């Protein structure tokens, strides 16, 4: 059968259809008009028109985080592409599989400083897994195939395909490759069996074992395997900010999140353990603090990761296992089941007693006299009212940490936030991506009055696409985390962190056609949340503006550059 002759734009669209794309988040412009014309004439996927290209990439990113599928964004050349860069860098830092298609000026105009021209491939090179400039219509289909393959396999990440306008108007045969292989790219799958045996032996014979898992477990769909393995061996476990939900928070082995704002027990156990199993995590500065301090207490470290470059990057690893985290964990489980010695030393050990003593410190308690609204309490009530089942997106700052600390997740892909790049403004577009993926689920965006204003224009997108997101705005009139650092480390000099001239968020929400609520009393938290999540407002976006205690801080806190056990606690204790 002869292949059909169609335009380059149609080839691009057909290629997306072949990849079973359900949503494309985008914004039209000159260089992508042919592609948009082809979108107009198809119905297999839905195009979501955002109000700023940054939000298109964030929403596609969240769609991927929530579903596990590759997210797709489409932007025009020049400013369309540069606006997308923050979103791409955000996805890159958190290893999110995405394909971004950008329009480019016609091939003959490239390099001539044409209208809306920029070197998109050059600008995005450091913040993508890979990128392509397609110069020939014959390469459009195979390049999109490669882009999806690269984005989703190995350590995932965003892949950008830059397509000049002229080749979207030309015509060619449409042949979509069935399979793809690249001689320069062969990600490993199974871990080395010798390493797996060594790791198991170390863990079984450990006196003070500890598990620390990260975003790789969520991305690698490995949380079931992780949970089974950890339960089999009875190991204590902590999750990174990106790994929350990778292990059920309600399980007794879970010590909470670790790191700069981790729990006392998780950080102490990380510091004091003798064998550490790290799974899909990367020992970054916000997680283990100062690496020298971290290693001051001798410990053997096992590290399972898909990316060889993550191994021994900040901390020397004793037993590296490179492979797909799910497959490696499954191999660990089956190897363990064949072992004679299944007595893990941990049950009833001194180690578990020590951990229980650390727990008794109750590091997450906070003072609440019932008058001013405590942000922690808002999150706890949110958890209660949504039965811990909601998709929670967050922006970046204090509210993000409180959401991570006070909304325990029992399932992966429910906690959607920017961990690596720490991008303020992601919360609302993230909520859009989740709500589109799961229209019948509850989606809450936990944010602050500073972050929310960075992508506030997306309230309009939410109206157009009827996205009933609940926005939990923890409004303390400060860039809270900046203020906290200024209080702790800059002698209370609050340079430019006060949020003056704030809008009336209730009226703002209403002007976009949504419901707004302002909550000023602690006693109104519960009723406001109940109303927002009530059947009456099920179809509506509700903007809940909580006027919170201005000087509340996030505890515990490991100051930057300090060791994990050098925490500042809420009661003022320091340098433990």
């Amino acid at each position: 059968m002869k292949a059909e002759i169609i335009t380059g734009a149609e080839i691009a669209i057909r290629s997306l259809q072949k990849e079973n794309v359900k949503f494309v988040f985008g914004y039209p412009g000159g260089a992508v008009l042919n592609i948009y014309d082809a979108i107009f004439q198809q119905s297999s996927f839905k195009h979501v028109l955002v109000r700023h290209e940054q939000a298109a990439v964030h929403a596609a990113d969240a769609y991927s985080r929530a579903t596990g599928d590759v997210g797709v964004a489409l932007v025009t050349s020049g400013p369309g592409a540069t606006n997308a860069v923050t979103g791409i860098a955000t996805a890159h830092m958190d290893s999110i599989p995405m394909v971004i298609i950008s329009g480019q000026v016609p091939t003959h105009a490239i390099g001539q400083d044409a209208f809306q021209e920029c070197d998109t491939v050059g600008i995005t090179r450091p913040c993508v897994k890979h990128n392509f400039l397609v110069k020939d219509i014959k390469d459009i289909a195979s390049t999109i195939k490669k882009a999806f393959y690269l984005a989703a396999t190995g350590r995932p990440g965003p892949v950008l395909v830059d397509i000049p306008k002229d080749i979207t108007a030309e015509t060619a045969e449409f042949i979509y490759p069935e399979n793809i292989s690249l001689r320069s790219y062969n990600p490993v799958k199974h871990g080395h069996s010798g390493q797996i045996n060594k790791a198991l032996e170390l863990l079984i014979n450990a006196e003070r074992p500890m598990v620390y898992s990260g975003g790789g477990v969520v991305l690698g769909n490995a949380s079931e395997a992780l949970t089974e393995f950890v339960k089999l061996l009875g190991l204590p476990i902590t999750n990174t900010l990106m790994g929350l939900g990778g292990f059920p928070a309600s399980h007794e082995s879970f010590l909470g999140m670790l790191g700069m704002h981790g729990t006392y027990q998780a950080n102490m156990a990380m510091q004091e353990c003798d064998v550490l199993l790290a799974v899909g995590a990367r020992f970054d500065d916000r997680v283990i603090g100062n690496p020298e301090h971290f290693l001051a207490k001798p410990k053997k470290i096992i590290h399972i990761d898909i990316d060889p470059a993550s191994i021994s990057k900040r901390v020397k690893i004793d037993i590296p296992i490179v492979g797909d985290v799910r497959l490696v964990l499954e191999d660990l489980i089956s190897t363990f089941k064949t072992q004679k010695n299944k007595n893990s030393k941990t049950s009833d050990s001194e180690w578990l007693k020590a951990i229980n003593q650390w727990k008794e410190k109750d590091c997450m308690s906070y003072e609440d006299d019932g008058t001013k609204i405590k942000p922690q309490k808002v999150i706890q009530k949110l958890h209660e009212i949504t039965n811990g089942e909601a998709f929670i997106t967050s922006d970046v700052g204090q509210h993000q940490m409180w959401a991570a600390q006070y909304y325990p997740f029992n399932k992966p892909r429910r906690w959607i936030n920017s961990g690596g790049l720490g991008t303020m403004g992601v919360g609302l577009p993230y909520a859009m991506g989740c709500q589109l993926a799961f229209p019948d689920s509850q989606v809450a965006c936990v944010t602050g009055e500073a972050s929310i204003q960075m992508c506030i224009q997306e309230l309009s997108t939410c109206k157009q696409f009827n996205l009933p997101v609940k926005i939990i705005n923890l409004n303390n009139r400060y860039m809270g985390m900046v203020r906290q650092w200024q209080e702790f480390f800059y002698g209370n000099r609050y340079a430019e962190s006060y949020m003056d001239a704030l809008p009336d968020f209730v009226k703002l929400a209403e002007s976009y056609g949504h419901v707004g609520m302002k909550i000023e009393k602690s006693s109104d938290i519960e009723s406001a949340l109940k109303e927002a999540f009530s059947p009456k407002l099920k179809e509506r976006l509700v903007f809940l503006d909580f006027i919170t205690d201005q000087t509340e801080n996030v505890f515990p806190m490991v100051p930057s550059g300090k060791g994990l056990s050098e925490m500042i606690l809420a009661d003022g204790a320091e340098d433990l």
Partner: protein
Amino acid sequence: MRHIISLLMENESGALSRVSGLFSARGYNIESLSVAPTEDPSLSRMTIVTSGSDEIIEQIIKQLNKLIDVVKVLDLNDGRHIERELMLVKVKTSKQYRDEVQQLSNSFGGRIIDASENILIIEFTGASTELDNYLKSLNNSLVVEIIRTGASGIGRGDRVLKI
């Protein structure tokens, strides 16, 4: 420590900037970098001279391997290898120094490839340290211009970088 890293990558536009961008983004040193197509026109071979602790070199090699276009990476310092660099030196020579310069150059294996009234151009190939030694021996005030290509390298015996 100084390392010579050889790699094969897809001969595509932007390939060089992916490698140089990696080094600048992650703060790695580049002493020299040379690149040319190979006998297989779809591949380029690059030689990078860099320096760093064992941990840094390990990271450099891992990060290079992580680049999608990189097919194969070899740290030549892991085994016996030959290193060569090409250098052209332009020297100002009045009659009284001419013989001396020629003798010195000959003793370092240099070849005079151009001579005009007051100028000699001398060509050298050798390991980078040999070229350094020649320059140290030469009267600095006579040197007009120096151009070096940066090192290339190849493994000895059956150590081969090929796909």
